[in-house]
């Protein structure tokens, strides 16, 4: 097998520092948003006692799900022994760590008492899926960290496959845990199903890969390094499979619910009567997130790199829409405590709960995205993560 030269990006150009500054600005906005929310309380957000998890959770869960998906490329290389993916693996590991960092920061900074984070790390209730996730997230950092080390340090290279396999199994468990945050909730019609765990895993494959592709293409384009079509086309095909699988899971989930009379009302709410949420479902999650990318990638447009990038961006936007519908939609629909009866109260029982995200929530969420990208931008400067060239000739040599 031909060897590949990895090289840090120089990171001294004005363009690099502009990108760094731009992302840093959003991190700053996110920090200010947190400070504002922390000082005044959640009263300054759009959240209330009905919609208790708002836009920050949408961003946080999206980033956490995407994080485990971003590790996929590395897993294919070391667990499934595909040599073509090997040069792509270090970036994959770093990106997954960065996305998880961003997601977790948003999650913990949206706590009612984010100053009590230490309490969450010292008091555990092992029946809680949240507690399990605390360990799954920490374990992910450790395992992927070790995996990255085995990829970057030749002296421990022989451990790479073992570390990669451990990280792969861990990431599947982690996303099972994330899906089960919702799957283990008995109270709400749209949750409380084992379906959510595998669905979150397949969603992580799609979202993580879309982000990876965009970051990879941007890194090579902005540093003037060669990135051949072989790599892009291979990853594109993979993305098609993942997006199609996401669509399949969504269809099966809703078809099953539509069959049960007790779920008719909540399904009608999401699919037909939910206003903005219904629009987000059909236009955001289904058309932008699944159908349009599939059409682009499977048609002749999918042979052009710019269109592939557009498809990736659509998958990401559709993913955020999906998280919004999954998290907000299930809360917006009122709890059915007395089936068959209409309910009315000062606490908005029996009503569809409205939610409009506030600016601080949006900026806290974007801050998490910015942290993830900033960490990646910094990592490619200080670590040898990116091959000096990924042109078709170099990649072809790997497979022989």
């Amino acid at each position: 097998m031909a060897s590949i030269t990895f090289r840090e990006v120089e990171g001294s150009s004005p363009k690099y520092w502009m990108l760094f500054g731009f992302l840093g600005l959003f991190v700053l906005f996110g920090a200010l948003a947190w400070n504002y929310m922390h000082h005044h309380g959640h009263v300054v957000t759009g959240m209330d006692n009905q919609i208790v998890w708002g836009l920050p959770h949408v961003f946080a869960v999206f980033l956490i799900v995407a994080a485990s998906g971003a590790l996929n490329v590395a897993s294919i290389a070391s667990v499934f022994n595909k040599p073509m993916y090997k040069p792509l693996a270090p970036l994959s590991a770093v990106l997954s760590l960065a996305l998880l960092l961003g997601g977790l920061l948003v999650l913990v900074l949206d706590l009612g008492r984010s100053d009590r984070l230490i309490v969450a790390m010292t008091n555990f209730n092992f029946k809680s899926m949240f507690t399990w996730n605390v360990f799954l997230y920490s374990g992910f950092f450790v395992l992927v960290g070790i995996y990255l080390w085995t990829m970057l340090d030749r002296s421990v290279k022989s451990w790479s496959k073992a570390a990669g396999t451990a990280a792969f199994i861990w990431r599947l468990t982690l996303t099972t845990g994330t899906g089960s945050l919702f799957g283990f909730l008995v109270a709400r019609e749209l949750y409380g199903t084992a379906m959510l765990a595998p669905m979150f895993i397949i969603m992580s494959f799609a979202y993580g890969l879309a982000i990876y592709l965009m970051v990879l293409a941007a890194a090579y384009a902005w540093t003037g390094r060669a990135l051949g079509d072989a790599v892009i086309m291979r990853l594109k095909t993979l993305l098609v499979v993942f997006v199609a699988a996401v669509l399949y899971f969504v269809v099966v989930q809703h078809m099953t619910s539509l069959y049960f009379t007790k779920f008719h009302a909540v399904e009608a709410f999401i699919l037909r009567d939910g206003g903005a949420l219904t629009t987000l479902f059909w236009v955001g999650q289904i058309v932008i997130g699944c159908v349009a990318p599939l059409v682009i990638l499977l048609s002749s447009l999918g042979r052009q790199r710019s269109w592939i990038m557009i498809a990736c961006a659509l998958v990401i936007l559709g993913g955020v829409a999906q998280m919004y519908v999954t998290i907000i939609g299930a809360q917006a629909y009122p709890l059915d405590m007395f089936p068959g009866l209409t309910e009315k109260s000062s606490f908005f029982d029996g009503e569809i709960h409205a939610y409009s995200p506030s600016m601080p929530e949006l900026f806290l969420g974007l801050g998490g995205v910015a942290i993830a990208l900033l960490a990646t931008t910094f990592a490619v400067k200080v670590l040898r993560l990116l091959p000096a060239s990924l042109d078709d000739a170099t990649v072809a040599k790997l497979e022989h």
Partner: protein
Amino acid sequence: MSDMKPRSDSTPASPERRRFVGAATATAAGLAIAPGVMLYEVAHGRAEDQAASSAVRWGMLVDATKCATGCNDCVSACSTENGWTPVAESKHAKQAPQWIRKLELQDPLTQMETNLPMMCQHCAEPPCVDVCPTGASFKRADGIVLVNRHTCIGCRYCMMACPYKARSLVHEPLNDTQKPDVPRGIGCVEACTFCVQKVDRGDGNTACAEACTAAGHNALVFGDMNDPESEISKRLRELPTKQVRADLNLNLGVRYHGI
């Protein structure tokens, strides 16, 4: 406590044996006087250093057939006793905590209307306690479900898990209506406590039930469901009652008649 005495003078030759005899005596004595102690507890409250006992299960009977339309006395009494601002006076009504609320139900077919108060149902198997990452949500031995103000991190997972929407997050800094024996705090989740401060004082009743009785409706009965002689146990034996969302099998501390 009587079982402390034999332990304290355990200097002689066979401390192990002494300890055993002491403990056995104490246990026997405990078994003999326990029912009496229990009655005393219920009547006079609990000493601060005495743990809540699982021999008691606090519960409430809501007789919806007696709950008056338009009456809000239970809600007002709760707000006064526990120091949360009434929704009508709150600057941010949408985000204001409500420990108890009046629900108006109607059957769309028959037009039958039902009124009832809804609050924490003090489940024997509370989903909020299951999901709480830090263990701040907990159930006391006597069946009262509470939130530990010191370890609640405001993650709101319990609010996602509660099938009764019984919990509220304190969304803003609190004004000075706080009561010394009802600690509250911004960023923490809270709910009906069955007036735990009153129960521990030995009042044997909650503010909402007292207010309902004072108004002459008698729709709320609070008491020990484990004591066959308590009023609530007697009434529960006679009246057909239901648990809200009985399908979840959570074994609720609040039982409704007339729903």
